[in-house]
């Protein structure tokens, strides 16, 4: 087991031939299958745009004109399922944004989206998804790992476990967080009970991309090489004393791989090779798009390099107050970069094999507490209704699937639990949730926890 985990680590180019054959053998043994379960599936990569905090479906992609009639009308929520937040006087609130139909498909978008309409026909909207948790960390865990309480492998870990790696120089699952980590922290990209090597590797937006990847100040490659040579001398002597201890060789090799990675990784993250035009298209160097634009561009580069699963976080969409201002500012920060990503992938012929997913951990309520009124109103957490969209990767572009009720309180058409969305996501990537299992703590575990159904309407 130790050998296998090592082989899946962030490895650089492999050395001796004997070692490569070992890798091939171990790779087959340790992944869920020897390839996709559905070879006809188009998607080979996934870029997951995680809108942390729970974007409001009502104010992005799911217009609710009825709320204008009900605006500031009062109602009460009751019952023992209510939290402190949802108790007391509540008011319906309308969306502060105007909606229009865009693209040939006539998709609904609010007018804060100015660039996304250009690629509207590439998108497949889904309004039927429901989750269980109303708290951020548990909802994040639920969306990312299928388990509300965390501790299980994230989708990206499962996908890499199932499809294996395309580029041994890079981790197969890369996370591009905001400067700050989301609620629930690194358990959102955990390998769970899968081998450690399937863990998501967060590339830090500032400072060193991977912790301690750079030698201490003043220490050169040459300097470190000499230390490594001396280390390997000691390790060789030691290994000759312990010929039956298998782990020794793996750990020795690991130092060589790490040494090469130190050189290679920083180059991969540089945007220097990109044209002015590309940078401009993603909004790099401009506000408010620079931050997310850089990461979208990097996501494209990583996918080109063969990284299976890239997850980007944009936050925080948790607009309990001042919805107009908050969502009004958040949308333009991601709008142009996302549109550029889709266009860029399309022009490079990569959109078909790259599934893009846009979602948060839940939607938002049509109502707000007593804090509302005027322009100060926002919306609270709503696990019963949300907007998700996908693009590329064999999804059913140009369609809107499912519906919420007339005020956006709950999904009413083509309603599925998040587990079914997970199954569908895997299906688009050629993986069968029922076959992508791992034996742990007494049973075969899977992303959907206990199995689920595909949502055929989302697949082209």
């Amino acid at each position: 087991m130790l050998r296998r985990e090592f082989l899946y680590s962030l490895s650089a180019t492999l050395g001796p031939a004997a070692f490569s054959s070992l890798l091939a053998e171990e790779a087959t043994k340790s992944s869920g299958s020897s390839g996709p379960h559905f070879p006809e599936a188009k998607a080979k990569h996934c870029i997951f745009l995680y809108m942390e905090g729970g974007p409001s479906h009502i104010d992005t992609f799911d217009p609710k004109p009825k709320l204008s009639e009900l605006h500031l009308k009062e109602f009460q929520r009751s019952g023992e399922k209510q939290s402190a937040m949802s108790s007391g006087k509540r008011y319906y609130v309308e969306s502060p944004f105007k909606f229009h139909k865009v693209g040939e498909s006539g998709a609904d978008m609010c007018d804060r989206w100015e660039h996304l309409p250009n690629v509207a026909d590439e998108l497949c909207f889904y309004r039927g998804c429901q989750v269980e948790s109303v708290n951020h960390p548990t909802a994040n865990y639920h969306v990312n790992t299928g388990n509300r309480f965390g501790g299980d492998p994230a989708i990206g870990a499962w996908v890499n476990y199932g499809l294996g790696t395309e580029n041994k120089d890079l981790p197969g699952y890369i996370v591009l967080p905001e400067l700050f980590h989301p609620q629930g922290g690194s358990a959102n990209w955990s390998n769970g009970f899968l081998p450690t090597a399937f863990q998501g590797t967060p590339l830090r937006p500032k400072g060193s991309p991977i912790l301690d990847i750079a030698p201490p100040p003043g220490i050169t490659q040459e300097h470190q090489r000499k230390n490594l040579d001396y280390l390997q001398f000691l390790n060789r002597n030691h290994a000759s004393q312990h010929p039956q201890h298998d782990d020794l060789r793996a750990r020795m090799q690991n130092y060589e791989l790490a040494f090469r990675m130190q050189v290679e990784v920083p180059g991969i993250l540089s945007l220097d090779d990109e044209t002015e035009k590309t940078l401009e298209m993603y909004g790099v160097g401009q506000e408010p798009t620079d931050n997310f634009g850089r990461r979208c561009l990097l996501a494209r580069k990583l996918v080109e390099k063969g990284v299976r699963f890239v997850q980007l976080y944009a936050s925080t969409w948790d607009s309990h107050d001042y919805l107009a201002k908050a969502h009004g500012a958040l949308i333009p920060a991601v709008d142009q970069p996302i549109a550029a990503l889709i266009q860029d992938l399309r022009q490079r012929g990569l959109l078909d094999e790259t599934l893009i997913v846009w979602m948060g951990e839940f939607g938002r309520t049509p109502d707000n507490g007593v804090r509302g009124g005027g322009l100060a109103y926002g919306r609270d957490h709503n696990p019963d209704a949300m907007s998700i969209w996908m693009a590329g990767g064999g999804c059913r572009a140009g369609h809107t699937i499912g519906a919420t009720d007339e005020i956006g309180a709950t999904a009413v058409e083509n309603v599925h639990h998040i587990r079914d969305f997970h199954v569908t996501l895997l299906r688009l990537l050629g993986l069968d949730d029922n076959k992508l299992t791992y034996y742990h703590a007494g049973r075969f575990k899977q992303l959907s926890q206990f199995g689920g159904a595909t949502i055929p309407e989302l697949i082209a």
Partner: protein
Amino acid sequence: MSCKAFRLVCLLLGLMSGWNSTGLAEAPSVGEKLFALKVQPIFQEKCAGCHSESADSIESGFLLDTREQLLAGGDSWGDSVVVPGEIEDSYLLGMLSREEEGFEMPPKEAEKLTEEEVWAIRDWIQEGAPWPDDERIAGIYRDFAEGVVVQTSGGLSESWTNRKYDPEDLWAFQPIQTEFPELSDACKCSPVDSFIDQQLDERGILSAPRASRQVLIRRATFDLLGLPPTPAEVQEFVDDPRDDNEAFAALVDRLLESPHYGEQWGRHWLDVVRYADSSGFANDYERPNAWRFRDYVVRAFNADKPFDKFIQEQIAGDELAEANGDELTQEQRTELLVASGFLRMGPWEHTGMSVAKVTRQLFLDDITDTVGQVFLGQALQCCRCHDHKFDPIPTRDFYSVQAVFATTQFAEIETEWLPDENLAGMEEDKKYHRLRHAANEKVLQELHQKQAEYEAEWFRERGMPYKTKAEAKKAGVAVDELPNRTLKTAEEFGKERIGRKWQHRFNWEFDRYKPFAYSTYSGVTRTPKSSYSRIPKPDNPSKGGELEKTAILGGGDPFSPTIPVQPGVLSAVPGALEVSFPASHSGRRTAFAQWVADPENTLTSRVLVNRIWAFHFGRGIAGNPNNFGTTGKKPTHPKLLDWLATEFVSNGWSIKHLHRVIMNTDAYCRSTTHFHPEQLSSADPSGTSYAVFLPRRLEAEEIRDATLSVSGELNPALGGIPIRPDMNLEAALQPRMIMGTFAPSYVPNPDPNDRNRRSIYIHKIRGHRIPFLETFNQPGSETSCEMRDQSNITPQVFAMLNGQEANDRALALAKRVLDECDDEQQVVRQLFELCFGRLPTDAELQATQQHWDQMNELQKELHFEPVEYPVEVVREAVDENTGERFEFTEKLFAYQDYIPDLQPHQVDARTRALADVCLVLLNSNEFVYVY
């Protein structure tokens, strides 16, 4: 508990053994027996999820509830799914043998039928696919099924209640064997060895020879203390004139008396009980008094507290304190209250967004499952929604155990400090905490000032005669006409949120320095407040809330109670049905704990000795220390396990006695190298024979502690408030979200003496772990960890080679050795002795000196500046009110007085060059592996 006969009702009647009349009016046919005993169970277990009226959604319109439905078929194959008597025409067989492409059933590869199962269905179809009624099926099962019935409190269905088990799967529920034949005294070996050697003989395996004394002292010292032996200790042991066994026994005795023993073995226990200093989830608030539980555990191991007592204190300490109030000293009472903090170790919080019933259930489910895993080796969570699929644990038992905890409530209870508690460093720590708090208060005050100005302005603009909202409110202005929030910019909103949140946190964190016990009491359940301050214990625990009535929850949903249950235990354990519980809300846990710690409980002592064994040998006698059920690995040496359990209990549940019994054996002292490795690997491919000792990698904390120990920097003080060592600075300042805002930064202790303490004392924040420890497989503390992984991943190299802590240790080690030794050869010898417990070979000596010289040349060219540490950090964040970015500055007060460890600019090139040598030694395989 009185001695009970084992309750298995043996009905070992095979399929082929013929019919004996016990109630069936007519002998069943072969086909009927096949159906009742083989076919229908497969249908129910593997097919009913999608092909039954009871399924959530029925697939392909195909049902398997009756013979008629089966024969009618579904959408795809119609009536040719099964043609009775015609196996060639029955498509079902192709699906089940996975030959019908696209129709492989069941769809989950992992659930595919075995060949034998497919054959049973084939033969049944051949026999005409008979389908007897339920009563007859039950009769056939009763009379003909193999296996044994276990008496339990009963499942949700009669068929579960009456189902039969393979006796092998029930090993943990069988009485512990306490009588053993005279162990052969042909050899002077220990009883442990006689069990191991017997199996080696039976399997024809030769064992490895005894390891050298040099190897053994390193093995035993790391094992018992988590630290390397000093060169003097190695020398003393190697030179001990006594025979090997005697000398080693004396070594074990010495190590068991070390106070560091409790740190190492307490740490193992803290993995099992998932200790952390914070709540996890959205707020990840510090639990400011949790550290007292950690120290309680260390003390318990050091004092060799009888484990039955240790169990009872953790499960019911507060009740014991209450019940025996008059007889107890203040100290004893405190100890008991701290002990039951065990019950609250899991991640848990209740926020303004939380639904009270849901968070309560979260606790109840967590503690039920945890108690099952930790003490009983039974993962109970499976039974939250249904009777156990494989083990004799009905869902009723899950909720009966849950009822034991239904009156368990949280409280921080005021106590006295214990004389053994280490209060050092509190004033120092509090000083910085005060500074932090005061700075935050100042920001808040400024914002409130601004808010007041804005409010006044708001009223002025509207021509209203008020200055403040409060004033207007008092004057009777309607809520709707008051200003909502009067801050303006993203920065103001953002800072105000941070300020408020940090105010809660900081206020609560002052409790770190107060003698509260993070504890529990028994009483009614009150509506919880958002948990951002300590929970007081109410004056009257039985008033002001609801006495929970536990019931079996449909699908585990707290809003779907079904059958009410009473407090109880795991009913399959012999004697369990006779355990009684008090009617009052207090005392349930006491009764439960007594049952757990009863010598006759077939699970507890086995579970404990197996854990101890597993930590010594790197694997349990039963391979899954948290799972003694059907799906866990069976014991490789069941008699040894029972012998150890008996020995343990009859010696007063003494863990130290158990260490002696286990360690003073040939098995423990064997070499890791075998003379005939190929023979061994073919005779013992899974490595269960104990013919060799398994090498192990040091655990995360051991690596850090060992480097501090050899560098001479380790402060060996025991216990006290959590410490904060240096963390990779980028990780320390990594901003992270907590509910509604951002968490304060991680700032190390300014004094190296506080930082460089053993890793067990590191502040364990669930949402912000020390990257070095995490990368070396320190487990997360969500669930109980039975054994740690030892994976080899590349980030470990970065941490050990490039990380600041590793480089600091290397430099300190170089300085230490240069200070202690006169000539170069002596330096190298001392280094090898410190790091590896042996002298270098001539080749190593030469290569090391050469490398030192070579690095000296490189280092001479290098120039180092003092490192500047940040005294503040500027953060960029997005405000959730406006969606706009803003910046805020956090002062890092402790860095103002920060004393770094020895730095490169403080020493000459030769020392730095030796530090290069040291860094390599600390990275070497010989340093991180124990043999």
